[in-house]
């Protein structure tokens, strides 16, 4: 594994994103508008299960929207150029890592907007630290599972529609464990109870990244 190469690729991603500031803007706007639409539908929610479920639906679709970008923005020429420079495994690891960082920012933004509009009543009796950790782990987990799917959808020459079809059934196990963990954290249960679900989450992440590492070279070459 080439750490230096991954570092360069990460920096490249960062620079590309800095050059296209509207990309960040569009992701943030997507989250805020989704939350605002939810707010128009439900106003304030204090029912913990519904609050929890709606929150994760918002994060899930924000993830789909944000991650679909990661392989779509390059044209064939730039892809070929990257192909000659870097090994595919470095590319997928760098992208996954970068997407994970993106999702950290995005899920925190979602949480902020959601608590502001939909209400933070459920957070009052929650184990706040565990809950925020779950949110971060969930966002990172979506990135780990969906990065390869984004690559697949982009290679198939099809946009976010195909990504949703391919990704939803695969991300469901992760979504269920993360919803369960965050529900427990919201109910104020200690880390010793929630930890089991977070452990599964990390295990699923590890498996997904290992599979992506194994499989991506077959997607990369044409």
């Amino acid at each position, binding site marked *: 594994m080439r750490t230096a190469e991954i570092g360069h690729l990460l920096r490249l991603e960062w620079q590309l994103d800095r050059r296209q500031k509207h990309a960040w803007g569009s992701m943030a706007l997507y989250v805020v508008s989704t939350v605002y639409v939810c707010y128009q539908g439900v106003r304030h929610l204090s029912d913990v299960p519904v609050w929890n479920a709606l929150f994760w639906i918002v994060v899930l679709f924000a993830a789909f929207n944000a991650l679909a970008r990661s392989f779509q923005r390059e044209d064939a020429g730039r892809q070929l150029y990257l192909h000659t420079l870097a090994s595919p495994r470095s590319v997928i690891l760098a992208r996954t890592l970068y997407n994970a960082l993106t999702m950290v920012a995005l899920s925190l933004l979602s949480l902020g907007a959601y608590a502001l509009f939909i209400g933070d009543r459920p957070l009052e009796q929650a184990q706040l630290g565990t809950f925020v950790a779950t949110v971060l782990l969930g966002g990172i987990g979506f990135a780990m*599972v969906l990065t*390869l*799917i984004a690559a*697949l959808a982009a*290679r*198939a*020459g*099809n946009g976010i529609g*195909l990504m949703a*079809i*391919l990704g*939803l*059934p*695969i991300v*469901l*196990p992760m979504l*269920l*464990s993360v919803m*369960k963990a965050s529900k427990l954290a919201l109910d104020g249960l200690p880390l010793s109870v929630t930890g089991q*679900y977070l452990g*599964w989450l990390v*295990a*699923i992440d590890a*498996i*997904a990244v290992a*599979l*992506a590492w194994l*499989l991506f070279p*077959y*997607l990369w070459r*044409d």
Partner: protein
Amino acid sequence: MKGGWWKIGTVLLLLYVVIVGLRTPLAPALVHASVDRIAPGPVSFDIKGYNTHFTEGSVTAWLENDGQQVCSAPVEVLADDRARVTVTVPQGFRKPLTSVWVFTAKDGPIALHDAFFTEGLGDGITGTPCRPGGKYLRSGLAFPDRAILNETIRNLFFHVPMWFAMMALMTIAVWQSVRVLRSGSLEADRSALSAVHTSLLFAALGLTTGSLWARVTWGGWWTSDPKLNGSAVTVLIYAAYLVLRGSIPDAHKRARLAAVYNVFAYALMLVFLMVLPRLTDSLHPGNGGNPAFSTYDLDSSLRAVFYPAVLGWIGLACWAYTLTDRTERLNALAHEAHDR
């Protein structure tokens, strides 16, 4: 017929499963008592049996509460499956639920567990054993008769092995996808597609048999249950696989991308099927605190049909897969000839 022995074996196994699985009677059992609450004093009630033989030989009945027995007066037999039991209920049973037992010369001891809500509880009675000694003649294979399941217990030989067959085909599909990734062979890609098509057929069969079974036993066509969610996700994944294939015109690219998705999805699906049952309770036997079928298959009569059924259905699935694969190959050849 070179190499066709396993097809003959499959046919024989499934014939055995259908004949023995559908013709074997349920073991004799008591299904109903006309009274559901007893209090100290004389009580008389009718019991209803299923596959019982009350008219053949003498019939003895007794109540049992926490291991203590109270014998009944002579039983009045009304029919092979109906009898009237008269018994004097003592004061002082320990537990709130009392069972009724019947012993017949042909069926042996059979019970209706926890049949009566019991009044007049105390510290126990001075009971006497009521079960007659001597042998009884229960002949041949019989499946356990469980409340709620009753005759539908036979669906075990169809519903469950169909899922096993589906998983076997999906494993074949993944293996073919790995071959695609290693060699880029379009033939392996076609085999993977054939396996997925056939496995979806078995998923449909498993869903149909399961849905009917759920309607009869649980009261709904679809329940919120981890196994059902697991099967729904599995079907969605493979439907997505077909959509992915449909969206790529180039054959080599299609083969590669579909293989990548298949391997990725299969591995995560296996994780899902392992994790999911621990997230929520299930109505399925062997999950969520429910006893598995094996716990009441005391004489292994279910196993004697279930294991052959698993082999038979997997054999049938493999056979269907090879036929689909060959048809697809012929279609591809015909296509080529037409193009030329």
